């Protein structure tokens, strides 16, 4: 109940267009990809010993992820994780991180 007046109040008060505010949340790729950030840092900006995604392009990341899934690339844990996704999902995750701010 409270959400509706609150919503309207701010929309009206600040003259905001009544449009979806942040499309990201509805984007299932964002939710899927953000699960990776626990190990690789928010938006892939790893600060520690985990590989960062920043500076890598989508094709590079796609190849890494596909090779982890197929077993072509040796891993300690990424082989186990990549197998949880389809190739399409891995490609979408790669594209998402490549598109995030450097």
């Amino acid at each position, binding site marked *: 109940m409270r959400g509706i007046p*609150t919503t309207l109040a701010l929309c009206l008060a600040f003259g905001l267009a009544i449009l979806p505010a942040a499309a990201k949340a509805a984007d299932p790729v964002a939710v899927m990809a953000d699960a990776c950030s626990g190990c690789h840092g928010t938006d892939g900006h790893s600060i520690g010993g985990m590989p960062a995604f920043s500076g890598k392009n989508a094709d590079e990341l796609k190849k890494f992820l596909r090779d982890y899934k197929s077993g072509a690339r040796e891993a300690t844990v990424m082989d186990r994780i990549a197998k949880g996704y389809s190739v399409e999902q891995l490609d979408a995750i790669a594209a998402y991180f490549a598109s995030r701010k450097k």
Partner: protein
Amino acid sequence: MFNISRRTFNGLMGAAGALTMAGGLSACSGGAKVVVIGGGFGGATAAKYLKRYDPSLDVTLIDADKTHFTCPFSNTILGGMNDMAYIERKFDVLVNKHGVKVYTDLVVAIDGAAKVVKTKSGQTFAYDRLIVSPGIDFKWNAIPGYDEAASHIMPHAWKAGPQTVLLKKQLEAMPAGGLVVISAPGNPFRCPPGPYERASLIAAYLKKHKPKSKLLILDSKDAFAKDKLFKEGWEKLYDDIIEWVPAAKNGKVTKVDAKAGVVETDFEKFKPAVANIIPPQTAGKIAIDAGLADKSGFCPVNPLTFESTLVKDVHVIGDSSIAGEMPKSGYSASSQAKITAAAVVALLKGEKPGEFSAINTCYSLLAADYGISVAGVFSIQDGKIANIKGAGGVSPMGANYQFRKKEADFAVGWYQSVCQDSWA
């Protein structure tokens, strides 16, 4: 600051009140209030990602303490590898960079009908949606004799902070050749591999500083997370130190007399130099008091949104929630927090919540240069959160030194990243 904006807010709400009848204008969620209880991995990540997914939200995080000591890596303090500052997380980046309002206060009541939470200091916070992430509490006296007072003599150290410091001091004070006992609980409990990582790192400390000491794990179970890997590592590293006693061999601790320093199983009495009793657990106290838990002591939720099935507009994440096959770990809590943040943003806009996709990764250290891991990728299967088959699992058996060392280094990287992703 807060009071002024709040008054302004109420004024606006009043002015707009009449217009709400028009309805249908739900696309803008600007200013909707989301309150988060708990500043651990679940709560901090939820607060940060709520603002990331919808910067216009009014997000308030309430934690009883000024800073949070993480359970992950608290065992490295017992092992003498790190100090308490290493596991202390502050909330200032959430405030300054992400625009979260943070209050140090204890939430004592949730009024699900009025949609208000009340704190010990007398403050009230209204919410449109509430995210409850209070971690765990203990079933005092589930082990007869082990109550809160006993935990000041025989620490559980299963919430990091003063308990960790107490256990560390006891280890430092014990004589060489002494006995350490760890009592491990039955399932479910926070951090399933935790007691065994703890045994490993305490053994590392004993090996170096308290020669000829022994460590006995008295277990209420016959199997545990990554058990084959732990046993393989113990044989290599701590064969003459660690002994694991399963429930089937009367490992279950049935009674404790903290003042007398006695730990009992059905068949034996021990008088260890140091006793670490990890008791059975429930959801955090506030979740239980608010009627969010079922008979199991944990909180049933809709797996897609983590909304409580018992109280509307309240979401429960992390160790307090019943999350199917996701273990009660910091990484799980953080992954659940993002799903929940996205779901809350969608629900506040009157949209359908997105798809579920979650990961858990969890490293355990057996020594500074010996790490093992478990990973899982999760989806909703038959209405429950379950492991995606063919994915996940534990590190390989029989791996060489380089592999274990690499995983130990990744454990440190993991910790740095998951903390950055949650609090910074």
